[in-house]
């Protein structure tokens, strides 16, 4: 990550010339020590030139973090994390430490880039090679920025928003995921480095998927990403997060917080494709991805829809959730989680029904191969005031080989008698006769697995924006390579 940061800064600077990172020239000089304490938090805040209230918010979060118990993991095998042994501020590597050319990059990663059809320049950037070329996407980004600001849409980094839109940040930051929610939420609140901020004004339908430039932008997330999206009354936005390319990344622990707020009649569609380094076949290395994502359908008739394709990371632990507060509000969760080799995933959603006539839909597809473990864990909670609430849940698991595991753990709590909750679950093994059939039609074994698994995931993938869906399909196939035969 760190190695790419400088490039991204350059790109951002080109796109928005008055955006100044105060330290970009002396980057090699700044070396805060390892460890987590108030001094480090003050250091981060000072580096970002934050107002006093932001620093206080961070320090308060740190106090909360110290009081909260560390999470006890279900179903996941996680080594204990030494918080004092981490750097909390990414320092871009100096130029001489960066790889000089693609020859120095792991050929496996390059193979994946090739299969995904990622252009060479971008490959270099993703690999952390210093690139001084101007990317095509910069001009695209600039065009978008103009178009968006004409509509009153704010789309910038959260650090920038703290300065330019403090009233919105103060009002909404931490309002969906309270600082005290759990240990990682508090940690993120104390030390978050950057992330996206979006505000869609009343009555505005955002005309573009907020992402497209953004294979590059999405990488500027850092270890403790913080994203806040607010859709005001009668507005609509579709946001794509993530990157289909595997990223070179020095950070092992990622603890992001993502908060969404939808007011009356507003709709937010949030799509993620996550393909971080999963570790090698023996389970060495790889990212621990502990993300808290939560959306509040605060207004009447509001809607939040999460779509995720999770294929990377050594351990994924996330439950994008919806708090269905407004009457008639809707929450949706579409998920594909693929684990291969030694990967572990524990993912699902929480749908909290508070308002009347609220409805939620959960479609989860888990695929396990190798020695991987894949768990769906979900909560549907219907509170007593949520008259006439509805939920439909479908969890399907597909196993490849006989050393992997799939687990489904649905929690359903209903406190009123007018509501209706449906749960369907299936588990199946990939069928050798299906594979043989496809191969007899000329597909090689990897293409055959890809085809069958993509068929299995179709209900979810079709909710992704078109261009993303094509890449996601390729990714599904790639992440299962070597799982058969």
């Amino acid at each position, binding site marked *: 990550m760190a190695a790419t940061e400088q490039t991204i800064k350059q790109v951002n600077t080109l796109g928005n010339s008055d955006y100044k990172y105060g330290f970009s020239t002396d980057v090699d000089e700044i070396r805060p020590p390892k460890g987590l304490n108030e001094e480090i938090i003050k250091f981060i805040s000072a580096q970002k030139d934050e107002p006093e209230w932001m620093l206080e918010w961070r320090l308060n979060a740190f106090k909360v973090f110290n009081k909260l118990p560390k999470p006890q993991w279900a179903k996941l095998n996680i080594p204990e994390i030494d918080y004092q042994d981490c750097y909390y501020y990414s320092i871009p590597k100096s130029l001489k430490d960066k790889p000089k050319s693609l020859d120095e990059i792991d050929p496996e990663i390059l193979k994946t880039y090739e299969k995904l059809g990622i252009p060479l320049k971008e490959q270099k950037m993703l690999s952390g090679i210093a690139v001084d070329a101007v990317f095509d996407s910069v001009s695209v980004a600039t065009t978008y920025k103009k178009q968006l600001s004409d509509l009153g849409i704010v789309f910038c980094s959260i650090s920038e928003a703290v300065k330019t839109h403090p009233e919105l940040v103060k009002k909404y930051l931490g309002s969906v995921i309270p600082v005290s929610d759990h240990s990682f939420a508090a940690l993120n609140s104390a030390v978050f480095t950057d992330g996206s901020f979006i505000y869609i004004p009343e009555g505005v339908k955002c005309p573009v998927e907020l992402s497209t430039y953004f294979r590059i932008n999405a990488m500027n997330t850092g270890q403790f990403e913080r994203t806040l999206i607010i859709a005001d009354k009668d507005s609509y936005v579709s946001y794509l997060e993530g990157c289909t390319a595997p990223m070179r990344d020095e950070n092992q622990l990622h603890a992001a917080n993502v908060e969404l707020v939808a007011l009356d009649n507003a709709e937010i569609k949030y799509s993620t494709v996550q393909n971080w380094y999963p570790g090698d076949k023996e389970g060495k290395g790889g990212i621990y991805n502990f993300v808290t994502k939560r959306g509040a359908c605060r207004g009447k008739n509001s809607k939040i829809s999460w779509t995720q394709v999770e294929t990377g990371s050594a351990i994924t632990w996330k439950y994008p959730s919806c708090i269905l507060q407004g009457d008639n509000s809707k929450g949706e969760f579409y998920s594909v989680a693929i684990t291969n080799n030694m990967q572990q995933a524990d993912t699902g959603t929480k749908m909290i029904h508070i308002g009347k006539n609220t409805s939620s839909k959960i479609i989860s597809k888990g695929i396990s191969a190798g020695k991987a473990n894949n768990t769906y864990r979900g909560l549907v909670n219907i509170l007593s005031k949520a008259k006439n609430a509805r939920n439909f849940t479908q969890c399907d698991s597909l196993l490849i080989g006989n050393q992997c595991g799939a687990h489904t753990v649905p929690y359903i709590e209903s406190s009123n008698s007018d509501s209706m909750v449906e749960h369907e679950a299936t588990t199946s093994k990939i069928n050798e006769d299906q594979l043989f*059939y496809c191969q*007899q*039609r000329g*597909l*090689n074994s990897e293409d055959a697995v890809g085809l069958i698994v993509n*068929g*299995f995931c179709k209900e979810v993938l079709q909710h992704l924006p078109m261009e993303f869906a094509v890449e996601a399909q390729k990714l599904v196939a790639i992440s299962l390579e070597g799982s058969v035969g």
Partner: protein
Amino acid sequence: MLEIKNLHVSIEEKKIIKGLDLSINKGEVHALMGPNGSGKSTLSYVLSGKDKYEINDGTIDYNGKNLLELDVDERANEGLFLAFQYPMEIPGVQTSFFLKTAINSKRKYLGQSEMDALEFAKLMKSKAEELNISTEMLKRDLNVNYSGGEKKKQEILQMSMLSPKMAILDETDSGLDIDALRIVSEGVNKLRNSDNSFLVITHYQRLLNYIKPDFVHIIADGKIVKSGDYSLALELEEKGYEEISQTA
């Protein structure tokens, strides 16, 4: 085209094929008939390369290549096609998409570029019409909720789109009503030419009324016990397997 010599095959220690010889030349249609358990379907799986089968002895030459050394997909892309007795369902995969993937896999293997979308659509439409397959069906998931007859037509559609050199039809007539049988047979007959060959595996002489073979072989207990022309099929219909096998 295909030259099988002294083939011995077993599955889990059980011998199924015990010294089978069969030679098929370009442009010929051979019918292989035999009772249940005689090794007919095993032969079709061995030719197409399904694992689990152990080749204990013998050779199979396919257009100058050692067929047994090729992977399943290589055999397919070299023009060997098996119309399955029980075609597989693949949920979530649209039939037309599957057809396109199969065609492009072959083209890739042959070093050709992908078929252009318009060209593909035209080809699929004309071939589907010949087999009386509706465009609505091509939008459905492959073989999912298809009737038995629809599945078999689908196999023949795939065959006609891939235009194989060597096609093996494994009991394609089973589960077909008389109208579907006629349509499927016409589809096969249209494909016949002097460059390709067919091996038609069946229990019944009925199919051979529609697809006239040049040669008929009778298989019993893992060997070909009698070979002849079309009249052998008629004789078999009259006398039954047991008598024919005994007189062989």
